[in-house]
């Protein structure tokens, strides 16, 4: 391997990829936990409807998902026009747009593990905490989340990894605009398309090394017996 290969690489797509994965994951944690909580403790008979909806991104082809998001958010559409006029925001073909698309695409990866984790906690925990005078929010924060921290970490890992590998959705709604929406997966694809296999190998290799290291680090911590994870939630 040429030692100067690191100098020739355009790092921007890689930075964009990790930025996208980080922002998407953090935002999904913030909205995923309330959604998982609502689904885990809802007794409604209609619960299956939101659950199925949330699972849809698992089933839809990514390009199709990207296409429909584009329809909804394009500046010429009703919603897109509204957003543009009143908030000055344009979602399609921007970094914000691919964040939103990624959040939709990876939503089930965040919600489902957390929902399962919460549901598997003994019902007695909630009842005991209620008898001890705690509000629902206090119970969530002090009992439920700390005791399902492994599920939460799993959800974070899956979401992060899934977003790094995203291609079809981002290409469709992002437009592959250099420095804004051209992420590493698209850059690799373009290199392959133009038969620049060496360039493709370079990107793929770096992407693999960094992603693998991040995931490895998280798994090591998750498997350890230390209570650092529970102390993190205080």
């Amino acid at each position, binding site marked *: 391997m040429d030692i100067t290969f690191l100098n020739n690489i355009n790092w921007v797509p890689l930075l964009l990829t990790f930025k996208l994965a980080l922002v998407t994951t953090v935002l999904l944690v913030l909205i995923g936990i309330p959604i998982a909580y609502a689904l885990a403790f809802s007794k409604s008979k209609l619960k299956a409807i939101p659950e199925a909806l949330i699972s849809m991104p698992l089933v839809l082809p990514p390009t199709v998902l990207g296409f429909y998001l584009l329809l909804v958010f394009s500046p010429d559409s009703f919603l897109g026009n509204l957003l543009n006029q009143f908030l000055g925001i344009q979602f399609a073909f921007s970094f914000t747009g691919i964040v939103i698309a990624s959040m939709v695409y990876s939503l089930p990866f965040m919600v489902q593990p957390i929902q399962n984790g919460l549901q598997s906690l003994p019902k007695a925990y909630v009842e005991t905490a209620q008898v001890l*005078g705690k509000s629902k929010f206090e119970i969530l924060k002090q*009992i439920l989340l700390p005791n399902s921290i492994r599920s939460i970490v799993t959800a974070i890992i899956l979401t992060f990894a899934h977003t790094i590998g995203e291609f079809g959705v981002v290409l469709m709604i992002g437009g592959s605009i250099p420095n804004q929406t051209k992420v590493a997966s698209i850059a690799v694809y373009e290199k392959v398309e133009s038969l620049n296999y060496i360039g493709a190998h370079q990107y793929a290799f770096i992407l693999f090394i960094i992603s693998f290291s991040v995931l490895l680090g998280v798994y090591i911590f998750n498997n350890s017996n230390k*209570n650092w994870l529970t102390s993190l939630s205080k």
Partner: protein
Amino acid sequence: MMIKIQIEKKLIGAQKDFTLSINKQIDSGDFVAIFGKSGAGKTTILRILAGLEQPEKGIIQVEDKVWVERSEKKVVPVKNRNIGFVAQQSILFPNMNVKEQLTFSKGINTDLRLLEEVVSIMKIDNLLSANPNKLSGGQKQRISLARAIIQKPKILLLDEPFVALDYGMKQELIQLTKKITNQYKITTIFVSHDPVEIIQLANRIWVLENGRIQNDGNPKDLLSNFLNSLNN
């Protein structure tokens, strides 16, 4: 009068369904034992008092506050009732050490003296920084009991709390229970299968059968008849 409980609820029985129907008053300081077969509805009564389940009809009034009034759809939420509850299996939270379990109760932050007092009475000083997973059954129940009374609740509900303990542990805990309920003047309702425990602790016994309280009186009287009948 301390607690007025007048409730009805349909329950599903092993052989047939029946209606739980209670109409009783409990005086302040009473230690009432509920005695009956499995499935008679004993635990349900406790859960209804705690607010974890609701009766279909009826009223629950504690001193001058109405906790449940079904006809007016009034129900005071669990967390506002200030009740202590100890179950058969201690429910200690895995993410906290013993001291944190005790201070977890609402309101404890303002009264550390109370914490010290309870810790010393229950003899758990040496366990404060321990992880609940590493404790014995007896130790766990002591902590559950401590946690239940640490807010100085007026009412304590015990659901066969000694059933999983060996004889020595059981006696120790019975003594502790007696001591703290007297010291803090707590009205206690206690579900049990064991006549010996009941005689040691309770001043009143309800015998629950077919959803109704068939007998209500002094444990020594009612139970000595029962024990005699076993020998014949």
